């Protein structure tokens, strides 16, 4: 049961991390 929850958590976390990184990258590309 826990493995299922971990899976969903991992998915969410991975995409959040990617999302934040992408937004940060865009900001730095635009910022100058």
């Amino acid at each position, binding site marked *: 049961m826990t*493995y*299922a929850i*971990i899976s969903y958590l991992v*998915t969410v976390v*991975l*995409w959040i991390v*990617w*999302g934040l990184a*992408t937004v940060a990258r865009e900001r730095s*590309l635009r910022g100058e």
Partner: protein
Amino acid sequence: MNPTIPRWWSGLGKALWAAALALVAISFWMASRAPIEVQMGPVQKIVYVHVPSAIATLIAFGVTFAASIAYLATKDWRWDGLAASSCEIGMVFATVVMITGPLWARSAWNTWWTWEPRLTTFLILWILYAGYHVVRASLRSESRRTISSVMGIVFFVNLPLVWKSIEWWRGSLHPKNVTMVPEMRVTLLVGMAAWMIFYAAALLQRLRLEWHTEARAFSDTAAPAPSEGRAQP
């Protein structure tokens, strides 16, 4: 031509994200309500995020393949931008597959890893496309687009052969489809739809970076920056 992001892009992006996040939330909710599979128990629900992610990975790399061909044919940088963006999204999906897969394997077969054809092929894919990004990042000049396109094509073309080889190597075909009652099937379909739209939203988001990068390069050539040549051998 100075690339600027069209105004409608942001609107479309936001709409896609809204739809994607809503659908993903719905699919998570449906997964929690889905019937529990007899043999495997609740862990089987990993499938609702694992399978769509795997399909999304293949679609993403397929798009990279097609866009790479288009770039080589037209030399239009936007195709290369699409290829690289789709590849990056594919990498995140592949990572999800590589993490949820072993979690499922541990519960189903009591082992973290098994040389199961799909998982093994995905591992190879993951390494290859990680290499794509590293090589691409190591090249500054225009050659980077051509080189990336070549990789995008070669890696994908080789894929069926790699897959088949692993299947033969493994001996027997891994049992493919667990029997699914209709509620499960619907849940899976919703999951598929959710992650496909998520792919589109993420892709559009990532594409913006390509436009900004090209705009920077454009303004750089207008006022040349100190030359960043390729690394010398």
